[in-house]
């Protein structure tokens, strides 16, 4: 009897439906479980990445360190979905959006508790970890 091989598939917890389970940046999910949204910074050249990457395309290094997405970002745009792809129907309606933090941008969902009339392009928002009704994890944008 061979030993059961351990598979690090933590990333399958990310999002309503995850399409990736094995990635070198699986620690992202552990940070998310602890309420932190983290990107990576290349220790060799200093380039900052969100979403996090295991490899730097500028200097080709894989020497990365985590940093926390903090402060506020400016809402670039958003869209409220009234119709969803298969696997997401129970979430409808929901809004996807993009925040500009200056050095990087973050793509995600707007917190469903935020009323539509309070959402304005250009507003400052913050990014917060979120647990979905099905137990999966993601992050959402809230009014700063």
């Amino acid at each position, binding site marked *: 009897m061979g030993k059961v091989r351990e598979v690090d598939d933590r*990333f399958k917890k*990310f*999002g*309503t*439906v*995850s*399409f*990736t389970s094995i*990635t070198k940046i699986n620690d992202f999910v552990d940070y998310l479980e602890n309420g932190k949204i983290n990107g990576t910074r290349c220790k060799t050249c200093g380039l900052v990445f*969100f*979403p996090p990457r295991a490899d730097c395309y500028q200097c080709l290094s894989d020497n990365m360190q985590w940093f926390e997405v903090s402060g506020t970002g400016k809402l*670039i*745009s*958003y*869209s*409220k*979905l*009234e*119709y*969803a*792809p*298969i*696997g*997401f*129907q129970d*979430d409808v309606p*929901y809004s*996807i*959006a*993009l925040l500009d933090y200056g050095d*990087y*941008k*973050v*793509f*995600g*969902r707007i917190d469903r508790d935020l009323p539509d009339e309070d959402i304005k*392009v*250009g507003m400052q928002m913050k990014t917060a970890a979120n647990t979905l009704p099905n137990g999966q994890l*993601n992050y959402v944008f809230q009014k700063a």
Partner: protein
Amino acid sequence: MGKVAIIGVGQSTFVRSYPGSIRELAFDGFKDAMADAQITTRDIGASVICSAPEYDKQRSPAGVFAEYLGLNPQPTFYVESLCSSSSMGVRLAYSLVKAGLHDVVAVVGFQKMSEISSSESQERMGRGADIQWESPFGTMMPAYYAMYARAHMEKYGTTPDDLALIRVKAATYGQLNDRAVYRKPVTFDMFADPANRMAGPVASPLRVGDCCANADGSSCIIVAGEEKAKALCRKPVWIMGLGAATTSVNLAGRDVFTGLTVAQQAGQQAYAMAGVGAGDIDVAEVHDCFTIAEMMAYEDLGFAKPGEGKELIQSKETYKEGSIPVNVDGGLLSKGHPIGATGGSQIRTVVLQLRGEAGDIQVKDPAIGLVHNIGGVGLYGNVTILGR
């Protein structure tokens, strides 16, 4: 090295649900182009098969199609860049001919979208974006383009009404195109009536009427070297310029949200290669998967200054009689958008225009035409300039 021409064009009728298999669907477009070119399969040196993956079960369709189309033992290639696959296929065919490897190459694009349901289709298309970091949020194509629409509205004051005008134009010409999937009229008033299906919400600010029609379809473009083209073809249409570009798949990696950088870059490359400018284009086919996509194309290609695309449609300059007719075959919005077949269908329309064979939708005496074909949400951009 000589020029490269298009000597035959064809497409199937775009339909909601094709009553046959994918190889049979591909055959329809191929047969149409072969009849147009009046050549035999022995004249063809290689085939390029184009589609987006995962709409059907066939792995490696190129080999299956090469046999079904009677193109054994010639080599075949499979090219995929989502919705711009067949424009990318023509780019490959151009390079194969230019390199002297083959004299004549058939580019066959196809998609049988009806193999899966609409919500499955949205999921597939959503996975044409970043599956690790975006798709888990429940993304789909209309919502991404809706984000561009909102950014465009915020910056330039474009309105949902301006976008509706684009849909009305598409439907005007879709009614005249017997190969179009959607042949009914669409009026501006439909968008003002909340009970009308066209005004139904999909992904704000885009409505049902702003979105193209899914379709099953195939297209075929036959590309040949100068010598062969002159020997085989009465009215060759020349490939004057080609442009292609890519960008970050994740919106977080982009800086522009009021236009598509891949279209701007591909356009500049194609104009430079052809030695022409936006003002020289007599007829254009642009990738109007959503109304906002056509609006951005006006600006990305230089038909209008940034933010002034709305004036072009308000003044009907992109109608058949206008200064720059765009999508007078109904566009993706009414003709339909069978992903892998779309670029070839757009090229077919422009080739027929340049030959003066476009029938009811013929633009007056065009000499230079342009095709703008986008893959994904501005992930892949292809611009092709054609001339008589």
